[in-house]
């Protein structure tokens, strides 16, 4: 029981701290997810905007460079004069400056005058339609933006570019099983500007940069937007340009550390961004890692959606933060639990150690000690328990002392009783003989008077012996009680009437004041009556003529330990009193102060035995020369424990 209290307390402390820990963990993670991830998504959206802005700026840059070039008078005259050597020089310079992959001048009839690259001056006749120049020749206005360049055009323009544009489709984890095995067309940031001589359209200057396999743009985005932020050695930010749903320029890496070119976006994103033209921001599994991503569609100059721009932040940074948060929460919870367990144990110890003491104390009491160690008094309910326990043990001590006294009395009585019974039985037989023969002798008429008086003395002496033996027998006769509900006042009245004559002769008054409304007591009438008679006769013997004996009854609680309802009979005489040295011996068998032949010394002893067997007790107060008071207390209800004393 003791340990279970302790463990219960510890367990409840643990339970509470576990509950609080789990709740704070749950709330903490929820808050983290809502705020930090939400914030991360916002950030990625902004990053995408920045990337888009960079893309648009790049387009403008190309267009502006071409426009400025077409304004140069020398350039105009070279176009007009078809001075291809000069034009080639100028184109080379411009392309180098603006970082163009391709550039060229188309005459107003659509033929290529000059371009950069290995085939700078194509022979007339071999013409692949220039998708950039054509609308400008027709519309006479400049265009710029994203262009999709066919493989034929690229081969015609520069076979190296066509080679660069070719990207083999990989079958990555997210890749749909497409029919196309490779990409051959190119995606480019391009512009085309009309070349005028006054109002006369001389031709078109076009140029652009191929995005396929281009590292410049995506890496610039990464450097600019994410500023080289890295996590565990890996760049946290990534950027990608898609041609349709295929990565053609990216710094997302494969597990082997290569750029993940030729891989596809998930069908979900493709559907959302390419087909519906919407923005996508969410966490996504990109190639081999989770990213917090944003995708936006890229539209071509002619208006169709041809690809996507993507930026993404490695989610691992956040999930690592989340993991760290979780770890901190769990460690914190564990620490709190540990502290709670310790605290619980400590508190339980504080509570249970006085209880433990009490248990030890009760063990000591069980083993017979009436002075058990209760330990320092506790200042809680336990303290009350300790006090109550101490009082209980004290009361037990008092009662044990009382019962020990009773046991001693009973044992004394029993041993004397056994002896008396044996002696009486043996003596009574010869006594019968003595009585018979002396009486028979006395019946004779022929005996001398002195012999008669001698015989008379024998008879008297024998009668004395008979009385003593009878007293011994009465003493030893601890017969079973035959209790019945009795009106104690009537019983006392009857007993007094038996002695009244004797008192009258002696000149001692007996006054009986019966208490009113006394409950009935369950007693053995004849035995209690003999007690009353015995004590009254004792008082009578002790009281000189002219004195008086007062007897009265009252309801009274038992004096020793437990308050039990009962009645008390008081016998007060104006006799000689009892010296204090005799008070202790008063109830001992054979103790008497009466003259030889006047008492056996058994009366009070027998009386005490009877009263005790009723569960009552006798007290005495006495003052030499003034008188004595005997108090007999009898319980109203009898308890079985008192009955079987002696035998």
């Amino acid at each position, binding site marked *: 029981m003791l340990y279970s209290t302790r463990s219960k307390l510890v367990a409840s402390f643990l339970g509470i701290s576990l509950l609080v820990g789990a709740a704070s963990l749950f709330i903490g993670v929820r808050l983290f997810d809502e705020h930090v991830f939400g914030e991360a998504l916002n950030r990625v959206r902004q990053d995408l905007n920045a990337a888009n802005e960079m893309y648009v700026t790049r387009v403008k840059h190309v267009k502006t460079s071409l426009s400025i070039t077409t304004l140069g008078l020398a350039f105009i005259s070279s176009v007009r004069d078809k001075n291809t050597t000069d034009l080639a020089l100028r184109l080379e310079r411009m392309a180098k400056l603006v970082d163009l992959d391709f550039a060229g001048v188309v005459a107003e009839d659509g033929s290529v005058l000059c371009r950069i690259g290995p085939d700078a001056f194509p022979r007339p006749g071999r013409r692949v339609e220039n998708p950039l120049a054509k609308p400008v020749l027709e519309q006479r206005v400049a265009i710029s933006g994203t262009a999709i360049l066919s493989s034929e055009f690229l081969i015609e323009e520069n076979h190296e570019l066509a080679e660069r544009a070719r990207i083999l489709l990989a079958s990555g984890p997210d890749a749909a099983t497409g029919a196309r095995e490779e990409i051959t067309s190119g995606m480019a940031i391009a512009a085309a500007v009309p070349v005028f001589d006054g109002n006369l359209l001389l031709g078109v200057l076009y140029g652009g940069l191929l995005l396929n396999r281009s590292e410049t743009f995506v890496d610039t985005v990464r450097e600019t937007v994410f500023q080289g932020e890295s996590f565990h050695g890996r760049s946290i930010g990534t950027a990608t340009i898609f041609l349709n749903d295929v990565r053609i320029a990216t710094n997302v890496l494969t597990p082997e550390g290569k750029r993940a070119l030729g891989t596809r976006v998930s069908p979900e994103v493709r559907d959302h961004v390419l087909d519906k033209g919407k923005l996508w921001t969410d966490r996504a599994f990109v190639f081999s890692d989770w990213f917090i991503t944003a995708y936006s569609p890229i539209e071509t100059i002619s208006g169709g959606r041809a690809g996507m721009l993507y930026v993404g932040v490695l989610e691992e940074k956040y999930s690592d933060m989340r993991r760290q948060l979780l770890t901190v929460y769990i460690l914190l919870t564990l620490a709190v639990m540990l502290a709670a367990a310790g605290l619980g144990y400590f508190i339980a110890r504080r509570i249970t150690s006085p209880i433990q003491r009490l248990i030890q104390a009760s063990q000591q009491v069980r083993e017979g000690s009436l002075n058990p160690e209760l330990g320092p008094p506790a200042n809680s309910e336990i303290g009350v328990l300790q006090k109550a326990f101490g009082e209980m043990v004290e009361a037990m001590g008092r009662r044990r002392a009382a019962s020990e006294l009773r046991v001693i009395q009973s044992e004394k009585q029993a041993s004397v009783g056994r002896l008396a019974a044996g002696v009486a039985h043996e003596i009574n037989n010869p006594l019968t003989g003595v009585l018979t023969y002396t*009486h028979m002798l006395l019946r004779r008429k022929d005996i001398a008077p002195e012999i008669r008086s001698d015989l008379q003395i024998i008879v008297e002496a024998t009668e004395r012996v008979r009385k003593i033996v009878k007293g011994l027998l009465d003493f030893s006769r601890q017969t079973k009680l035959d209790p019945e509900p009795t009106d104690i006042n009537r019983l006392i009245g009857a007993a007094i009437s038996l002695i009244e004559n004797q008192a009258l002769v002696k000149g001692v008054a007996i006054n009986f004041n019966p208490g009113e409304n006394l409950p009935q007591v369950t007693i053995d009438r004849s035995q209690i009556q003999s007690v009353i008679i015995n004590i009254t006769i004792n008082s009578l013997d002790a009281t000189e003529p002219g004195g008086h004996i007062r007897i009265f009854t009252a309801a009274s609680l038992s004096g020793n330990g437990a308050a039990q309802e009962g009645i008390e009979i008081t016998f007060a005489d104006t006799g000689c009193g009892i010296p204090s040295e005799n008070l202790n011996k008063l109830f001992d068998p054979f103790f008497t102060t009466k003259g030889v032949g006047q008492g056996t010394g058994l009366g009070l002893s027998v009386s005490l035995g009877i009263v005790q067997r009723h569960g009552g007790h006798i007290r005495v107060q006495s003052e030499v020369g003034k008188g004595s008071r005997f108090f007999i207390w009898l319980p109203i209800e009898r308890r079985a424990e008192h009955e079987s004393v002696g035998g």
Partner: protein
Amino acid sequence: MRVLVVDDEPIVLQSCRRVLEAEGWEMISASSVAEALSILESITPELLLVDVKMPVHDGMYLMRKVRGKRPGIPIIVMSGYATSETIKEAEGLGAAIFLPKPFTPDELADTLRSVAKSTSQD
């Protein structure tokens, strides 16, 4: 009147004989229960005076035997150690009266007379 007195104490038997013969009654004595039972085979006394405490068989045993065989004979029980239990037991077995020892000749004679009288009246 014929009285059978049963007691293991010779002095009690002698005393009783002395008193009863003085009263002019016939007394048959038995010093054990066995002897009393054998006497009762042939003789029918008007009264039985029996001691309680005797060796081998006690007075109660004798009373039980007599009650079975001779229910008509009144029995007086005597004892030097009379507890209320003994008296109750004796009365339960049909004892007419209980006579505590020691007794004077008058007490014995009066007891016998009163029992004999009440029996003859019945």
